[in-house]
């Protein structure tokens, strides 16, 4: 690799290499159609092609590859959840991330920076202690830390009794990390395309044809394609696409916003989150401070940004890091997130025999990209639900078995 890189660097012309499928007409039939080419759709295609030899696959997106929430998230990767089902699932994903650059032969810029969540109340300390114990029991590194340890971990943080909500303790998650979100979807898509999967961008699914209890074809703005199976991985558009297949989902689409400052010299290493102030902050390796928080107050299929959110995120950030007062904001944006009532995904079988769901990723789905790709691929290839995702089936709502993931409030990701 380094030699190839050296030769490329010296070539002077820097020739571009094609990474994905050239645009060509859709075939009449595919064994599998994947609706949505975000990180999740691309990962499903990759694991199917590489490990299950299923390659007659079309990966369709109404926009461009990874232009949805995959392009818009703040790239927090962690596994310090609260339910057993959640911790086990995200723990596997964090492990897959650790080796993802090698797996894909594509640098996803994984950085193990750790995550610090702040408690400003007694009840938060109680819930952190609970989370830490559940995490340790399941092999995830989490511990309750005192104010002195917080000072050592993040000396830049304002720790003062004068603060409106003084910091009382923290949950330190050494496994917390971040990676380049775009690289993740590009790496998966390149790996899938090189094994025969066809990526079709600007291809919007507009209808789903069924016969009996089966999907037979998918209608798009570029014509109809027949398929042996189909899976939807469309995040904010989950309800809209499921409706085409006659399926109702317990999902609401809410905007989630984030913003970023100009780059500054490196001074903040871990990711810092305060559920109480509805804000989280980290500094990217380029130097920008990324700031995110809670969801918008009401559902919307729109990615507009609001001044209300900018004000509240800025105010909360300055409570924690007053030195950012003069920082200039570069951008603010939103994504449409597919929120579930129990903050857990909806994965696996649907009421139709050959139609699969990869939905309900809300504000937490970037970290799940590798494990959801791997488990969904297993399920599509074998027809069996892997144990790891069985708790997340759509049936749970009918069986009163919701997975109440209180470790996933929108403010902590």
């Amino acid at each position, binding site marked *: 690799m380094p030699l190839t890189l050296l030769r490329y660097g010296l070539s002077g012309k820097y020739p571009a290499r094609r990474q994905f499928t050239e645009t060509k007409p859709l075939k009449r039939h595919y064994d599998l159609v994947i609706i949505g080419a975000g990180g999740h759709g691309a990962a499903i295609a990759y694991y199917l092609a590489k490990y299950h030899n299923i390659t007659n696959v079309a990966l369709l997106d109404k926009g461009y590859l990874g232009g949805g929430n995959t392009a818009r998230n703040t790239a927090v990767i962690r596994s310090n959840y609260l339910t057993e089902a959640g911790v086990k699932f995200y723990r596997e994903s964090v492990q897959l991330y650790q080796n993802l650059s090698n797996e894909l032969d594509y640098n996803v810029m994984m950085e193990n920076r750790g995550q610090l969540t702040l408690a400003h109340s007694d009840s938060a300390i109680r819930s952190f202690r609970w989370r830490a114990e559940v995490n340790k029991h399941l092999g995830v590194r989490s511990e309750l830390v005192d104010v002195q340890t917080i000072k050592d971990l993040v000396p830049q943080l304002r720790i003062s009794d004068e603060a409106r909500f003084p910091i009382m303790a923290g949950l330190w998650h050494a496994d917390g990390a971040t990676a380049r979100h775009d690289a993740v979807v590009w790496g998966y898509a390149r790996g899938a395309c090189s094994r025969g999967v066809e990526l079709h961008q600007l291809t919007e699914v507009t209808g789903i044809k069924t016969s009996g209890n089966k999907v037979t074809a998918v209608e798009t703005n570029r014509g109809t394609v027949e398929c042996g199976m189909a899976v939807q991985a469309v995040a904010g558009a989950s309800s*809209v696409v499921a409706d085409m297949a006659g399926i109702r989902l317990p999902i609401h*689409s809410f905007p989630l916003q984030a913003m970023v400052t100009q780059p500054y010299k490196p001074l903040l290493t871990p990711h810092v989150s305060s559920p109480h102030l509805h804000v989280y902050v980290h500094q990217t390796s380029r130097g920008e401070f990324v700031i995110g928080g809670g969801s918008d107050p009401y559902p919307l299929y729109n990615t507009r940004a609001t*001044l209300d959110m900018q004000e509240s995120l800025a105010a909360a950030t300055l409570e924690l890091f007053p030195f950012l007062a003069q920082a200039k904001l570069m951008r603010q944006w939103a994504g449409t997130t597919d929120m579930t*009532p129990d903050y857990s995904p909806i994965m696996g079988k649907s009421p139709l025999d050959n139609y699969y769901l990869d939905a309900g990723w809300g504000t937490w789905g970037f970290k799940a990209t590798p494990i959801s790709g791997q488990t969904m691929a297993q399920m599509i290839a074998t027809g069996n639900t892997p144990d790891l995702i069985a708790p997340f089936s759509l049936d749970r*709502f009918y069986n009163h078995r919701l997975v109440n993931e209180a470790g996933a409030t929108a403010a902590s990701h």
Partner: protein
Amino acid sequence: MKLMHCPLNGQRNISEFTYGGEYHPMPNPEESTVDTWIEYIYFDKNTAGIVLEWWCHTATSYWFLAERNTITDEILRTLPVSELKKEPVS
């Protein structure tokens, strides 16, 4: 600042209001099954387009209905609950 017209309090900042979910007629308890209730509670349509929703003016605890376009974020009209009895809504 986005404004919403409250049928009781008039034009107010949208931050004074709380969203209360899609409007659906409640199933008849005499005739419905457990699954009907589960669907009533969890399985909303989550429409991309014009919807009828519950909203509450938080300061006065006043519940009313609003018709909103969930793509453009335009509030088309707001109405007191009593209006529902006059015109059947789907």
